[in-house]
């Protein structure tokens, strides 16, 4: 069995994220980290491999060259190799363009299972998985909190607005996992040491046969027209706890007559 895990590199949560007013794109110059939601997907792939006895786990991302470093965390956890699609011409790709490029990269790998995280923490879309499933013409189960496999079929339990659904799909399939599906392992020292020597491939749009006008802004169908400040929300106070945090909350509640 071959499992591909789609991961995104996002600005580190400790860096202040902003949108660059000049390009109207997310400023990605800060530290990059592996999207935390995707670490759950990597973990689930490793567990499926352990349960199956044998499987290849490939991590795949579309992003700048800088994404290689955070992607190695997935290798350190135990993934077998990584593929990064990196091309200037892909910058600024929206859902349509991103799903096309990732779709092409996945066609090339032809995995039995494609795993996604729940959402990218910088976009909060939780939409890419369904777009890619359509490109690949494969069944989709999204938001999966419990995944089991039997007789070549996958069974996913997931929460909707009305409670829990259980959905079954044959392989090959696309599954997006929720952040509660598992507790991801920490990479071991041996894993970290070994990560560097695992196969790491960087591909261009040309390698995938994706034309320039199908990617990046040219291949996108949405656009950012303007940036603005959100409406003011009144006074928000944020303090550091120095031992008096509880007292200060109490004082605040008394001031607001909330007690």
């Amino acid at each position, binding site marked *: 069995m071959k499992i591909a895990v789609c991961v995104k590199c996002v600005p580190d949560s400790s860096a202040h994220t902003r949108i660059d007013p000049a390009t109207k794109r997310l400023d990605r110059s800060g530290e990059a980290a592996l999207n935390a939601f995707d670490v759950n997907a990597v973990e689930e792939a490793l567990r499926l491999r352990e349960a199956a006895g044998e499987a290849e786990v490939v991590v795949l991302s579309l992003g700048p060259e800088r994404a290689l470093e955070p992607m190695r965390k997935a290798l350190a956890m135990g993934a077998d190799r990584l593929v990064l699609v990196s091309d200037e011409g892909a910058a600024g790709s929206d859902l349509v363009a991103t799903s096309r490029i990732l779709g092409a990269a996945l066609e090339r790998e032809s995995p039995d299972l494609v795993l996604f995280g729940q959402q990218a923490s910088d976009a909060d879309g939780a939409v890419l998985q369904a777009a890619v499933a359509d490109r690949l013409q494969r069944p989709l189960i999204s938001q999966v909190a419990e995944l089991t496999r039997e007789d070549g079929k996958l069974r996913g339990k997931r929460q909707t607005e009305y409670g829990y659904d259980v959905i079954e799909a044959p392989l090959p399939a696309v599954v997006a996992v929720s952040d509660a599906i598992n507790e991801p392992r920490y990479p071991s020292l041996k894993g970290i040491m070994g990560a560097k020597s695992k196969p790491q491939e960087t591909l261009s749009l040309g390698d995938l046969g994706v034309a320039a006008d199908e990617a990046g802004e040219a291949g996108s169908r949405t656009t950012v027209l303007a940036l603005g400040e959100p409406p003011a929300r009144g006074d*928000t106070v944020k303090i550091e706890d120095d031992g008096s945090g509880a007292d200060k909350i109490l004082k605040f*509640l008394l001031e607001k007559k909330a007690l």
Partner: protein
Amino acid sequence: MKTLVFLEHHEGVLQKDSLGVLSKAVSLGGEVEAVVLGQGVEELAAGAGRFGATRVHVMDDVLLAAPLPQPRVDALETLVGEGGFDTVLFAASVLSADVAAGLAARLGAGLNYDLTDLVVEDGQLVGKRPALGDSVYVDAGWTSEPRLALVRSGTFEPSETGGSPDVQAYESRFQDFSLAATMVEQAHEEAEGPSIEDAEVIVAGGRGLGGPEGFAQVEELAKALGGAVAATRAVVDAGWYPYAAQVGQTGKTVSPKLYVAVGISGAIQHKVGMQSSALIVAINKDPNAPIFEYADFGVVGDLNEIVPKLTELVRQRRAA
């Protein structure tokens, strides 16, 4: 503008958020039609007229009985093509997000998501989208038609403006892969649980509690404050707390006088369920947690230190 609104339904009732989007579409002008997909849904379609749809397209098919996204992408592809719609609107839900994104890929169409408003500026449709934990607003546009949009849950209220619509049945073919996933067990309204919707004070716990046992201190604080306990999806999915107590997009919507968020990051999907609380207090050890963008009073620190102390202080105060 010729707009199609996707109407979601559950157990014979049209979903409120999608009716809200329909009302909004009507207020923007142009031709506004709706679509209802499912089995035994013809009567539901007629009801959509009250919210302003002049025509409601219905596809009644056993293959649409389960609320699965992929056959709906097939059904919408047919309708958008035949009906010449330039705009297709969805209210965000687990189902609709999958349908909208699948349709975007199928049609090569632009999808703007997480919108909190739709306006027409200089004859152009513009979506308003708060981004990066709602710290900046983006005006989102489309460079081709059809334009697809997903509206953040709880954004628009339905308003009854219309009359009886022209209901039109139609048919579509399904792709083999669209029928490959099957519903084994479908969600039903959960049995009664703790009622948090009427509580004036709510103390909510998230994954920062570290495990189900962490909820003990949340319960203590709630008891001291005379309030109810709520939870995030992450902890409900992990089995730490019952679904009935979940706040957010796929849980309850609450608006207490006081909402204390303990070890909660404050993701958008959680925010939509509690943002109208009168006062929001947050305790989180990560100074960059999105919850601090909208909490009235935030404390950066370890909940295991702060919560027991706060409980004790509230008790003393109450006893005095």
